[in-house]
Every structure is written in structure tokens, then in C-alpha cells.
């Protein structure tokens, strides 16, 4: 087949002749024979050659297999063939290179493993110095450094040594550390030869955590390591960088842990401080009186600071502190030398302490502390508005070094206690004045006056309200009669006592001015209070005039609970109704006089609303409850009646506090006899022979 020029395949088989085929065969045979001859000769030669090459190749194969299996120490030597010998040399070169690289890798792996181990060590370190030392040691042990120094920034951003291994780094190292800490870069500095030692390199690696540079690792590498081996980008440099990052993280964690621990300790301290303070405040807050508050404070302060004694000292007129309240064994109520420390705290307005009084350089003080068993002492001033009002001093029988926390706690206690003490002092002063006033006002009822017996009882309201506004009064009048009054002044405390005093003595004067006209007394008193006090308070008042001769009672009432006359047998009560508005409301008012007769044995009971407002079985006693209580008490004398009434009110209603309670009985004297008489109902007489 051949291709026609037009690209078409044409059938030529029919055109090839036999002759042409024969000629072609003859030419092929000659060539073939020549080729065979030449081939045989060449083959012989080649075979000889191949035998030498094949041996060399076989050695090369064995060698390459051994190298591939990791035997980098094996070497090959081929002599017969130059090129194969060259190949063998190259393979030997390769094996050496592989062996070197393997050693490098092993070294690096060892370094990495060491660094990892060191990282764990640094991570587990509990403080910065320990961690710094671990970093330095790890670099010397695993990274090939001969000397390492770890620098960290302190709170002032200055570098301080946190750990070192090997020799000192020297001034160059410190300069590198400062530079690296500033720029955060990896730095290499070649060291000059000195002291006969060939110079190595100093490497500075930044300790950086989350972008913040904490410090620098400066490592010295000996001359056995080339600059390239430690240059940036080398595996060693990478490992150093990675280790520095881990170390920085570990250092940062340690710092955080330390700060957290510090905060936790601070919080614990604050918590204890606050708890102790609360304990003291809750102990002294309920106290109203100054002495009560002082006693509570000494006990609570000694307990809060776990000491054996406490004293409160207050200044006298010469501004000299004298003990006012004492608690505990070591505390002495008299003036002792140890209180000089209290005086110092008071004068300087700061806490002062000594650890062991028995080691005092002052002989007298030492003897005193030995005698009184005073070891440690801590004193703090009581301050209000920057003014010292006294000092609190705590004692310990044993030597004790008071910490600044103890001092601060005592200062806090003193600051809070000073406020409570000042209030208690004010309260006590006011209460004492008011009580003195009221005692003089209330308790002046005579037992008898012109043949009339009186018996009064007064109970204050709540414990913290020492002064009430109830009063009763008896005034002998010029005409032989006796005026009796029961009143309740609005308000509490000193103001109520002042109003009470004013009302009482105006009433006394007016009662003498209008001896037979209680209504006129009330009218004039109402006007006087309205004019003088401008509705600052009001007062309910029962005012009566008893004529012992005819046993008559004239009374007027200004909004006060009605008086009750109990009969001799105690079984019937007459209520003295009638009256007008309370006094002092600002309105003029004309009151009316009412009359009643006091029979033999009758008792007039006057009282304040504290009686009828008393709570019994959850309900107000009211007037009805009072009637029943009086019936249950039964017949008795006036003083017994008022005593029993108050006792029953206290036991059944609990006079604990909501209001003052006052009660007064009035009884004509000639009937103060026994109540054993029995009425005769029927007497019959019988006619007999």
C-alpha cells in the first residue's frame, strides 16, 4: 500500500510482480548475514563488559538498599568503572549528608522534646522566679545554650532577673534584653573573644504573650554553633521562639494566678473584716444607753479581734483618757501605763500597738504588763467628723504582733462604733433629762390629802421610749377641796416631757384660780396652750374637784377616757361620761362641769388610753374589757385595785410597749376598811310566848 498523491489509498496488490519480490529478498539476506556476524562479535565484547558493570551495579543496589534502610554509615567503593565509581562517591556523599541531617533532626527532636518537657515544668511553676529558673535551665539543657538569663518587666516596666542558668550574661546581655523588650524582635549579637575563650553569640528572644512583651530571654551560645544555626529562620531559632511563647504564656498565667490569689486573699480579708465589723455593729446597735452600748462594744470588739480584753476610754475635762468600760481579764478599769498607747492613738488619730508589754523598755510598764498579764495591745481612736471622742483598746494576754489588717479593722470598728456611741450618748442625755423631768412630774401624788387616799401607777411604753406623755396630779385647793387630774400629752421623749411640765403647772395654777369650776380650768388651759404652743401638741385631760366634806365630785373632761367609780362591793361601775375636745387643738371650746357622788367605799379610777388600748388575746381591751378586769379583781382598796390592775395588764396584755399606761385611784379615807361586811337582806323577828 502506498499513499497516492491525492491522498487516497489505492489498491496496488494487483500490480506487484513476482520479480520485484525476488530482487528484494536477495538484498535482505546479505545484509542479514553481515549483521549477524557483527552482532556476535559485539555481543562477546559486550558480555565481558557487562560482567564488570553488573557487579558494580549490584554493589550500588546493595548500597542504596542499605542507605534506604537507614544505614547512613555504610560506604561504597567502585574501582572498575569510572562513572560508577563517581556514582558511588556521590552516593557516599549522600549517605553522609543523610547521616548528618539525621543527627541534626535527632538533635532538634531532642531539643523539641526537652523544650516540651521544660514547657510543662514552666507551666506547673507556681511563682515567677521558679518559672524563670526553669526556662533558663531548659535552654541550657536542651537548646545548646551555655548561659541563659530570663528578664521580666516589673510594675515599673523595668527589667529584673527572674531566673538564670550558667554564668552571668553581662552588660551586653542586659542591653540585648532591654532592646528586645522594647522592640520585641529576635536579636543575635556576636561576642568578642576574651579571656582566651573564643566568642560565641548572644541571642535575645522576646517573651511575648498576646501582644504584650513580658520580658526577654537572653541566651549565650558557644562557638560550636554557627551564626546560621541560631539565626532567625533556623530550626533552633524557631524552637527558641516557640519555647519563648510558651514560657511567656506560663509566666503570664503565673502572674494572673498570683494576682488572683492576691485578690482572693484581699477579698478574704475584706470578708473577714466586714463580718467582724457587722458582728460588732449588730452587737452594739440595739443598745440605747451609753453604758449599755459601751459594754456591748467592748465584748464585741474583743471577740472580733480574738483578744482577751477590751477597754473604751473617754476623755475627761482635761482631755485625758480614762477607762469608761472594760471587758476581759487583761483589761483594767483603772488608769494603767498601757493606756498611754490609747492616749497616743487618741491624740494622733491613728491606731497604735505594741507586741509584748512584758518586754517593754520601761521598767514600770514591763512590771505592770507582767502583773496584769498584758501581752499585745492595739489602740484606735473613736472618731466622729474628724474629731476624736475617745479610744478603743484591745488587749491580749499573750504577746501578739498586730497586723495592719488588725489595725485597720479596729479603726473601722472604732469609726462605726463612734457614731453609735455618740447617738447613745445623746439619747442617754435626753432620756435622763426627760426621765428626771417626768419622774418629778408623775410621781408626786401624795398618799393621802385632806382625807382622800390616792394611789398612782405609771408604766412607760416601749423599752426604747423612756419618756411618755402621761401624767396624773393632785392639788390641794384653798377651799379645802382636792383637785385631781389625769392627762395624756401627745408625743414622746423630751418634747413630750416639756409639754407635760408646762401643762401640769399651768393646770395647777388654774385649778387654784377656779377651785370649783373644772370646766373653766379646762377652758383657760385650752386657750393658754393654743396661744403658747401653736398646736405643737395636744393633751387629753380629766380634771375633777373632790369635796371630802360632802363626798361630791365635780369634773370636766377634755377628750380623756371616762373615769370609773367602782362601788364598795366592786360589782358596779359608774362611768363618768361627758366632755369636750382635747386641749391644744387650736380651737376655743367651752367645757361643761359634771357632778358625781362618791359613796362610802367607792373608788374613782382614772386612767389613760394605754389601759384600754392594751392588747389582750389579740384584741384591744377597750372599756368593756377594763370593766370585766375590774370585776374580776373584785372588792379591794384603792391601792390594791391599781396595783392588781397594772399587774393584770402586764401579765395578760404585756405592757411591752406600744403606749404609756397610767392609772390613779381616788378613795375617801374614812372608808378604808375591810370588805368583809355582808349585807343583811331580810331580818325577821318572831313573836314567842
Amino acid at each position, binding site marked *: 500500500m502506498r499513499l497516492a498523491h491525492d491522498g487516497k489509498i489505492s489498491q496496488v496488490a494487483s500490480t506487484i510482480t513476482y520479480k520485484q519480490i525476488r530482487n528484494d529478498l536477495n538484498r535482505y539476506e546479505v545484509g542479514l548475514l553481515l549483521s549477524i556476524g557483527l552482532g556476535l562479535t559485539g555481543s562477546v565484547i559486550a558480555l565481558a563488559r557487562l560482567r564488570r558493570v553488573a557487579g558494580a551495579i549490584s554493589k550500588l543496589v546493595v548500597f542504596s538498599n542499605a542507605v534506604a534502610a537507614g544505614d547512613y554509615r555504610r560506604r561504597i567503593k567502585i574501582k572498575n568503572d569510572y562513572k560508577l565509581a563517581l556514582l558511588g562517591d556521590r552516593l557516599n556523599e549522600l549517605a553522609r549528608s543523610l547521616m548528618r541531617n539525621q543527627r541534626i533532626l535527632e538533635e532538634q527532636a531532642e531539643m523539641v522534646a526537652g523544650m516540651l518537657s521544660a514547657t510543662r515544668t514552666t507551666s506547673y511553676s507556681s511563682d515567677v522566679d521558679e518559672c524563670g529558673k526553669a526556662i533558663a535551665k531548659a535552654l541550657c539543657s536542651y537548646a545548646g545554650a551555655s548561659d541563659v538569663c530570663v528578664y521580666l518587666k516589673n510594675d515599673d516596666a523595668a527589667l529584673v532577673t527572674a531566673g538564670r542558668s550558667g554564668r552571668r550574661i553581662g552588660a551586653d546581655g542586659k542591653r540585648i534584653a532591654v532592646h528586645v523588650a522594647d522592640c520585641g524582635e529576635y536579636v543575635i549579637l556576636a561576642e568578642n573573644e576574651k579571656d582566651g575563650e573564643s566568642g560565641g553569640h548572644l541571642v535575645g528572644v522576646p517573651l511575648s504573650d498576646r501582644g504584650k512583651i513580658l520580658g526577654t530571654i537572653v541566651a549565650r551560645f558557644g562557638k560550636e554553633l554557627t551564626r546560621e544555626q541560631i539565626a532567625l529562620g533556623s530550626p533552633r531559632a524557631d524552637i527558641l521562639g516557640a519555647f519563648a511563647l510558651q514560657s511567656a504564656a506560663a509566666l503570664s498565667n503565673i502572674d494572673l494566678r498570683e494576682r488572683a490569689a492576691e485578690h482572693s486573699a484581699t477579698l478574704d480579708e475584706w470578708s473577714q473584716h466586714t463580718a467582724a465589723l457587722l458582728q460588732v455593729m449588730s452587737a452594739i446597735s440595739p443598745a440605747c444607753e451609753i453604758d449599755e452600748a459601751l459594754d456591748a462594744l467592748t465584748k464585741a470588739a474583743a471577740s472580733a479581734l480574738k483578744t482577751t480584753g477590751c477597754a473604751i476610754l473617754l476623755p475627761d475635762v482635761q482631755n485625758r483618757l480614762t477607762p469608761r468600760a472594760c471587758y476581759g481579764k487583761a483589761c483594767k478599769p483603772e488608769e494603767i501605763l498601757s493606756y498611754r498607747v490609747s492616749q497616743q492613738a487618741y491624740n494622733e488619730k491613728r491606731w497604735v500597738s505594741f507586741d509584748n508589754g512584758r518586754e517593754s523598755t520601761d521598767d514600770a510598764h514591763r512590771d505592770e504588763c507582767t502583773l496584769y498579764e498584758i501581752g499585745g495591745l492595739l489602740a484606735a481612736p473613736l472618731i466622729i467628723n474628724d474629731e476624736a471622742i475617745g479610744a478603743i483598746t484591745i488587749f491580749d494576754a499573750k504577746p501578739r504582733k498586730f497586723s495592719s489588717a488588725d489595725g485597720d479593722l479596729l479603726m473601722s470598728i472604732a469609726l462605726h462604733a463612734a457614731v453609735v456611741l455618740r447617738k447613745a450618748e445623746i439619747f442617754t442625755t435626753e432620756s435622763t433629762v426627760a426621765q428626771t423631768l417626768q419622774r418629778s412630774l408623775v410621781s408626786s401624788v401624795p398618799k393621802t390629802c385632806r382625807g382622800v387616799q390616792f394611789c398612782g401607777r405609771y408604766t412607760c411604753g416601749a423599752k426604747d421610749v423612756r419618756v411618755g406623755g402621761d401624767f396624773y396630779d393632785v392639788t390641794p385647793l384653798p377651799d379645802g377641796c382636792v383637785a385631781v387630774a389625769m392627762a395624756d400629752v401627745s408625743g414622746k421623749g423630751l418634747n413630750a416631757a416639756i409639754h407635760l411640765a408646762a401643762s401640769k403647772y399651768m393646770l395647777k395654777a388654774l385649778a387654784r384660780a377656779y377651785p370649783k369650776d373644772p370646766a373653766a380650768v379646762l377652758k383657760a388651759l385650752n386657750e393658754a396652750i393654743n396661744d403658747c404652743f401653736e398646736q405643737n401638741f395636744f393633751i387629753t385631760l380629766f380634771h375633777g374637784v373632790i369635796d371630802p366634806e360632802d363626798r361630791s365630785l365635780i369634773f370636766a373632761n377634755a377628750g380623756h377616757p*371616762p373615769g370609773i367609780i367602782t*362601788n364598795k*362591793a*366592786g*360589782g*358596779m*361601775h*359608774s*362611768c363618768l*361620761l*361627758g366632755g369636750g375636745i382635747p386641749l391644744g387643738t387650736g380651737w376655743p371650746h367651752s367645757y361643761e362641769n*359634771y357632778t358625781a357622788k362618791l359613796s362610802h367605799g367607792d373608788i374613782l379610777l382614772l386612767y389613760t388610753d394605754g389601759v384600754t388600748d392594751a392588747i389582750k388575746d389579740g384584741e384591744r381591751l377597750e372599756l*368593756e374589757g377594763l*370593766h*370585766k378586769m375590774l*370585776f*374580776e379583781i373584785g372588792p379591794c382598796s384603792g391601792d390594791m385595785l391599781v396595783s392588781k390592775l397594772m399587774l393584770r395588764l402586764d401579765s395578760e396584755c404585756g405592757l411591752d410597749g406600744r403606749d404609756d399606761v397610767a392609772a390613779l385611784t381616788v378613795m375617801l379615807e374614812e372608808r378604808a376598811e375591810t370588805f368583809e361586811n*355582808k*349585807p*343583811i*337582806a*331580810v*331580818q*325577821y*323577828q*318572831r*313573836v*314567842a*310566848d
Partner: protein
Amino acid sequence: MKTNRLQFNISAWPISQQAVPNKSARLVIQDDFSQVSADVLASSVQSIIADCPNEIIVDVGKIDVIDSSGLRALLVAAQRCSAAGIGFRLENVSACVARIAGISGLSEILGLSECDVPKISIKHDIDLRQENWKTQQFVAESSAQMVGEMRDKIVAQAREAGASGIKLCDIKIAIGEAIANAFRHGSTDSGINLIRVKCRTCKEAFWVEIEDEGETFDPDSVPEPDPNILKDHGMGIYIMRHTMDVVEYSFNHPGNRVRMVKWLVDD
């Protein structure tokens, strides 16, 4: 015990010949004539009858007023004497005792002269403004001893207001009955029971209100008493209605409350 507090003085009484020629017994009512003393009178009359006197004379001169219990005791005594054939009469009878006997229809039985039954009158021109009234309040433990004392206290108020004569007598009778009723029916068994009395007086009228703590009752259901039937109770309301000008009952205060008015001036 309440009865132990009473003392009875029994002694021989030499009957003067000119006053009582034959053997007779004389009983003197010394004090208030309450339920207890009424019982004592009945038993005393019974024991005297055993001595067969010709006559029993009950001197009531020392008592000003008598209530329905006392009236009943006198009636029982009179009937027992009649049954035993013994004479019975009252001496020194006060106007009030005679009046309650008359109101009750017992004048004849007790040997008293008849009296007029009072008429209920209504006044329309009384000034009831508060300021004209005087108010008094009494509270008593519900006991027999308190009945008379409380009545006297209230009556004193009426007297002070100007009541006198038959009006005062009527007030005494009605108050006595009301308080006795409060005591008898207005007391519960538990604790102390109170009787509360409030009275208001002016020149024209006497107004009183009596409260007890007893169970409520319907006063209209109480029948008019028959003097010949000796019932223990039942005359009080009848007597009150016939002695006072206004008698009203109300309840739940928490017990019963009776309010009565007596006009002190005539039409």
C-alpha cells in the same frame, strides 16, 4: 356561795298587847327584796305556819319598792297562810309596793286597797336636743347583789331630773323589773356577764337603756300574767309596760336591750 352572804336575824318579838292581843308572828323585811330574799321569806313563812300563830304580819315599811319576784313571794306567803287558816297582812306598805300590787291585780289578795292602773301617755312637745340631756352610764357584774344597787343608782338619776310621786314610783318598779330580768335571763354560764345601763335625763323625760348578754327572746310571745297562777316568772314585762310610757326591745347588742321612757311632765 351567794346565799351564805346573807344573814338572818331570827329573834323573839314581844307582841305588844294593844297592838296584837293574840299570838301572832311579825316579819320585818329589812333590806332590798330580791329573788333570794323572796325565797327566804317563803321558807320563813312556812316555818312560822308550823307554830300555828293566829296571824302573820309582814312589815314592808323598810322597803321602798318590790319587784315581781318579791310580789310573788308575798302572794305565796298569803296563799299558804290562807290554806292554813292563818291571817296574813302587810303593814307599812309604801306607795310603790301598793302600786305594783295594783298593776299586777294582787291588791285584794294581799289585803291592799285598789289603785288606778296607769295610762300610757305620749308627749309630742319634748325638746330632745342632746345638750339638754344628762347622760349617766353604769356597768355592773350580773349578780343578785347588784340588782338593787343599780336600780337605786338609776332611780337617783330620775329623782335628780325631777321625777317624783307616782312617776318616780313607776320608774323604780320598771327599772327593778328590767334589771332583774337582765340578771335572771341575760347571764350566760361562762365568765363574767355585764349589765350595762345608760340613762339620760332632762326636765321632761327619763330615758333608760338596759343591756344584757343573754340569748335573745321575743317579748311579745310572753303572755299576760294571771295573778292567780303562781308562775315563777312572766310578770316583769307586763309590769314594765304598765309603768313606763315607752318600752322597746331590741336584740343583738350582743344580748337584749330594753329601752324605756317615762315622761316627767303631764299632758
